[in-house]
């Protein structure tokens, strides 16, 4: 705490050694963990399988993987920014993909099917938002229940069947290219840029950070807290929906369990990227996702089983939190 003491400099801070200040900056940077993880992953991954660090893999394997999870991480990160947690992302992914797939199979034009499916995703998010604001349910419980509900609906309307062999127009979302870049990569870049812009350069972004950093103070400051929360959850549902479209388009198959179990990775990625209540940026979340995606890609190429991969991510999650809580100081929003 700074005291208003006359013998301090006019800026009130003890002047530190320049180099020490730089080192402290790096140590305190919220991106330290991510960078460390990323580098070590690249090293380990290449050791496990030399094909890892090749352009071919980076292009078709890693990037694709990263992009899909990246959009999902954005969805989760938005909710975490306002001190919530979204356990229904996986179910929404499955449901939206399914709605698109089944509609197309039923003869609906691709464009309309996609739009309708995305609307479904947004509605799922809206339901979450209403549960949290109108019924004052803690987000953990609301999204736990809604996740089961959405997953159940997906399972029910599909009977467990997948909608496969979808038209090329739809597959384009997951397999096409715009110039040299994969379509979903472009989609991700657009989404991240838009969201980053909103968060960093618009007044509404300040509102979001304020709600996450101090909901009471935000309310007292005239921010329409409930309205913003509902919008955030709806947007998150929409983003989960985009992920569902892209993933089912790539697999050329829409099944209700498409996104099952994805939440752990998304939450870990967001946390790694510095997202917390009232702090973090969209790009930071992407960095976190990059680390996780690289890790998973490397492990897959190294022949490591999915369950073990999940285990490693689980360990990382707990470790990150312990580090955050006990070793790293408080960070600026």
């Amino acid at each position, binding site marked *: 705490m700074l005291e208003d003491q006359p013998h301090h400099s006019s800026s009130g801070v003890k002047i530190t050694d320049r180099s020490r200040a730089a080192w402290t900056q790096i140590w305190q940077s919220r991106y330290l963990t991510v960078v460390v993880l990323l580098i070590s992953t690249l090293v380990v991954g290449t050791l496990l399988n030399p094909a890892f660090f090749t352009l071919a893999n980076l292009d078709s394997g890693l990037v694709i993987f990263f992009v899909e999870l990246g959009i999902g991480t954005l969805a989760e990160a938005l909710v975490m920014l306002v001190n919530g*947690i979204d356990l229904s992302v996986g179910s929404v992914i499955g449901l939206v993909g399914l709605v698109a797939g089944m509609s197309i199979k039923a003869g609906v034009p691709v464009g309309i099917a996609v739009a309708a499916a995305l609307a479904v995703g947004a509605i799922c998010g809206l339901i979450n938002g209403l*549960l949290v604001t109108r*019924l*004052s*349910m*803690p987000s*953990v*419980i*609301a999204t*736990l*229940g*809604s*996740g*089961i*509900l*959405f*997953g*159940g*609906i997906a*399972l*029910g309307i*599909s*009977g*467990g069947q997948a909608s496969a062999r979808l038209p090329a127009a739809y597959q384009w979302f997951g397999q096409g290219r715009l110039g040299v870049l994969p379509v979903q990569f472009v989609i991700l870049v657009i989404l991240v840029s838009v969201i980053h812009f909103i968060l960093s350069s618009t007044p509404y972004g300040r509102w979001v950070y304020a709600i996450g950093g101090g909901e009471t103070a935000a309310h007292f400051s005239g921010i329409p807290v409930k309205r913003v929360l509902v919008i955030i959850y709806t947007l998150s549902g929409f983003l989960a929906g985009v992920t569902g479209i892209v993933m089912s388009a790539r697999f050329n198959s829409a099944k209700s369990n498409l996104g099952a*179990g994805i*939440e*752990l990775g998304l*939450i870990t990625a967001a946390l790694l990227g510095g997202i917390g209540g009232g702090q973090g940026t969209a790009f930071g979340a992407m960095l976190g996702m990059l680390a996780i995606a690289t890790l998973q890609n490397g492990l897959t190429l190294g022949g490591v*089983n999915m*369950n*073990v*991969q*999940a*285990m*490693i*991510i*689980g*360990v990382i*999650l*707990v470790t990150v*939190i*312990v580090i955050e*809580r006990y070793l790293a100081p408080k960070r600026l929003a």
Partner: protein
Amino acid sequence: MKALLHRLDTRPNRLLGFLCLFVLIVGALAPRYLLPANLIGIFLSAAVVGMVGIAETLVIIGGGLDISVTSLVMVSALAVAMTISAGVPVPVAIVLGLLASTLMGTLNGTLIAFLKIPAIIVTLAMLRISRGAIMIGLGGSFVRGVQSELGVLSTGHVGPVPVVVLVFLGTAVLVSAFLNWTRWGRMIFVMGGNQTAADLSGVPVKTVQLSLYVISGFLCGLTGVCLLTRVPGMDISYFQGFEFIAIAATVIGGTSLLGGAGSISGTVFGVLLLYAAYASLVFLRIDAAWQNTVTGMLILLAVAMDVLRGRKANA
């Protein structure tokens, strides 16, 4: 007489009434539903998940949440199955299984109570971590079931009632007694009701919180043994996703997700209702794929009712 009726009017009892009504109505629509074979089948299916539900209820009453329960069940089940197959005597194997799951529960509890990491994150991580650990141990192969080795546990009956169901009901009675008749049990209620008040009144909050997860781990271990009596074999992907049914049963049974209030009997009736509902789907010719929707809707309904009635910790 009126006083007696008033005392009987509790959520679990109302649930029981609803359950009986439900069974009768479905029975009227599809008479084969009421066949003893079906009813016992419902009990059997409900027994294993019910035990997980009991563990979950205990944790939730204490103000916590445990999503890792199914993985802990698997850890114990696989440990028991594999050691029996390796020639270890059955009782020793069972002890090993219980030890394994209890240890993981202790790990959960330590991280939550002493390192203050949110329960949702610890148990979510543990859910995946234990599956991964199993994977490493198992390598994807199929584990042969040990129903025959478990002998009387698998095939025994007391009258028409299978041993497993008795274990389930017995566990319910014991845990209920623990919660209602011991100091520690009441401290769990106190902590779930108002952790600050508990702390200020001298309740050893950290230790009580730890105990929630240790007990949960132990009960999951017991469930694992029961699970083994029901299946001819299993692999890594078995028993996934049932944690939500356990939570659903807890919530439907009247336990508040915010902690401090609830009952084991409610959970028992809740899980029976859920499985009676699932079974009815078959008899009523409704696609069984709608099961999860039913679960999800019931959870949200029950929680919404609780919240609307104003179950907040401090008025």
